[in-house]
């Protein structure tokens, strides 16, 4: 009788279902996974070390590039850590803007997740639908920051600038005639807030469409129900946060438990799962999109009614107004010092965490009183989740691995940093 041995298989780093550059070394018994050894670091850029060599504000742009599908939430964690050490509180309007953009970012992230996850599991349409909505939200990014993805919009002390009063519009071209352009510009006649409100009117209907396609879909349920189950105690011990933890039935959300900015003034619900499988995590994220939409609407209403400053007027950390700079010597000096030297943080350390779309995103900042961080440690939620990959897929079939990777919502920018 011949001896049957396990064989090892290499998955990735360029596999389309690996969500970037994940190399998995799998030990298989037939089609059953005995051991999964993720090899990460192919996208390691030493962000933390780079931050040590630059003034604080110059690293905000690096944060966008960590989890490159939820850019502004990364900035938020970093900016909060700086503000905590400086003892700085941004104006209320800036806090509302941050919350609104955090939730826009959450929808952006979950849309990409549902698109990619469904595509991995075999549903092509979801990807096309999700990217249609992402386009509108990226236009919101572009309206405030001038760029569709890597915004660098949050700054210590507030946000870079106030919300614009007009939206950019399409122009007729050889691909779109006058009539089509008129339809495309229908929501773009007013301010950014009008555009966001119009989106938030449409969006719940879109989520209904996604759910029609997936929630009761037999193939979708066969691929996700009972796959990658994590018990609540185990999820806590493994360091899970965000939808991964809530999918296992632990009601833990930093927006509610340790509120930052103005989350304590807003009304929203925290969805939790029951069994902790891929399907529950899917349901949690779908409901989170609806809740985010609800939060966005509250922020829009508040922001309409309450104009005001969006940046502190402490010119040690925030640049002075361009106009005053032209005629006021003091402002010119502030501007020069801020952009050539930056500002110093008091010696000490701070850890600030935000509820990122993927979980708890934290920044641990050590300062020795200089104008650059002494050490910056980024606590990325995806890093912790992928470290539990082996445990989650053991004993599952090879095809289930793809469903688990999808449901972990892995992005390598933040895992490798």
């Amino acid at each position, binding site marked *: 009788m011949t001896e049957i041995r396990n064989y090892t298989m290499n998955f990735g780093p360029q596999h389309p279902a690996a969500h970037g550059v994940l190399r998995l070394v799998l030990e298989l018994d037939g089609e059953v996974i005995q051991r999964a050894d993720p090899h*990460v*670091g192919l996208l*390691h850029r*030493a962000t*933390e*070390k*780079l931050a*040590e*060599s*630059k*003034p604080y504000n*110059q690293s905000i742009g690096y944060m966008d590039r960590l989890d490159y599908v939820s850019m502004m939430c990364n900035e938020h964690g970093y900016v909060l850590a700086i503000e*905590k*050490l400086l*003892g700085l509180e941004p104006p209320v309007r800036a806090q509302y803007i941050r919350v609104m953009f955090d939730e826009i970012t959450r929808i952006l992230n979950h849309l990409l997740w549902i698109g990619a996850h469904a595509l991995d599991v075999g549903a092509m349409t979801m990807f096309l639908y999700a990217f249609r909505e992402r386009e509108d939200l990226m236009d919101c990014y572009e309206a405030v920051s001038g760029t569709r993805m890597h915004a660098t919009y949050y700054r210590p002390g507030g946000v870079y600038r106030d919300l614009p009063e007009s939206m950019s519009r399409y122009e007729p071209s050889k691909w779109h005639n006058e009539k089509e352009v008129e339809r495309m510009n229908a929501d773009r006649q007013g301010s950014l807030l009008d555009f966001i409100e119009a989106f938030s009117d449409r969006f719940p209907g879109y989520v209904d469409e996604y759910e029609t396609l997936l929630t009761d879909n037999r193939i979708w349920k066969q691929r996700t129900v009972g796959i990658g189950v994590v018990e609540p105690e185990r999820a*806590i*011990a*493994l*360091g899970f*946060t965000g939808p991964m933890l809530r999918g296992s039935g*632990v009601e*833990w959300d930093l927006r509610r*438990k*340790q509120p930052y900015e103005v989350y304590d003034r807003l009304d929203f619900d925290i969805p939790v799962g029951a069994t902790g499988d891929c399907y529950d995590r899917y349901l949690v994220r779908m409901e989170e999109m609806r809740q985010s939409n609800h939060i966005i609407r509250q922020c829009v209403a508040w922001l309409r009614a309450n104009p005001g400053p969006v940046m502190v007027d402490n010119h*040690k950390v925030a640049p002075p107004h361009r106009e005053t700079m032209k005629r006021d010597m003091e402002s010119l000096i502030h501007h020069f*010092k801020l952009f*050539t*030297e*930056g500002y*110093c943080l*008091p*010696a*000490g*350390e*701070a*850890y600030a*965490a935000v509820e990122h779309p993927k979980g*708890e995103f*934290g920044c*641990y900042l*050590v300062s*020795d*009183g*200089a*104008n*650059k961080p*002494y*050490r910056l*440690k980024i*606590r990325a939620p995806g*890093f*912790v989740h992928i*470290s*539990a990959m082996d445990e989650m897929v053991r004993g599952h079939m090879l095809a289930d691995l793809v469903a688990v990777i999808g449901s972990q919502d892995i992005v390598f920018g933040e895992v*490798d*940093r």
Partner: protein
Amino acid sequence: MTRTVTEIADRLKQLSGEFPGGVDAQVSGLTGELTVEVGAADLIAFVLRLRDDPELRFSQLTDLCGVDYLEYGAEGEAPVPERPARFAVVYHLLSMKHNQRLRLRAYVAGEPPLIATVTDVWPSANWFEREAFDLFGIVFDGHPDLRRLLTDYGFIGHPFRKDFPLIGKVEMRYDPEKKRVVYEPVSIEPRVLVPRVIREEGYGD
């Protein structure tokens, strides 16, 4: 029932007698965060108390990282302020029961710096410790699988140490004659765009 940060600090001071190296718990006036320092020898006994004591219940290890204090507070020619050791491991813990966070620091002496692993206490430490080993060369005694994590296969050195240059030590290119990728010492010059300065409090007011 939740506890405030000072109640937790008081509880830790009560426990301090149990550990020969002593436990130093301080609440920062600046940020309101609780930082605890413990000797590396007492680490495992102490973290078990942190996890299992009903008044503490730090059930989750949110973060673990290495810190290299080699140049901490260095300014001009003045000598660097003394520290118990060059390296420290910093643990960030979360108690969901009491909704509190805690920062635990243990200085690690020796070369290579050696400290006990906490993977048996919190399984989430596994990859964090691999990362700290990779980037700082801190060895975690008893770790089940202490391999490099983020750097390349065959990488030499620990890149996040303060004496490791930002531009690295080697660069790589394809050599058409040897028909393979070769490593060579870096050819670029390191440069500093914005010099590091420490300003006294109230500078420029």
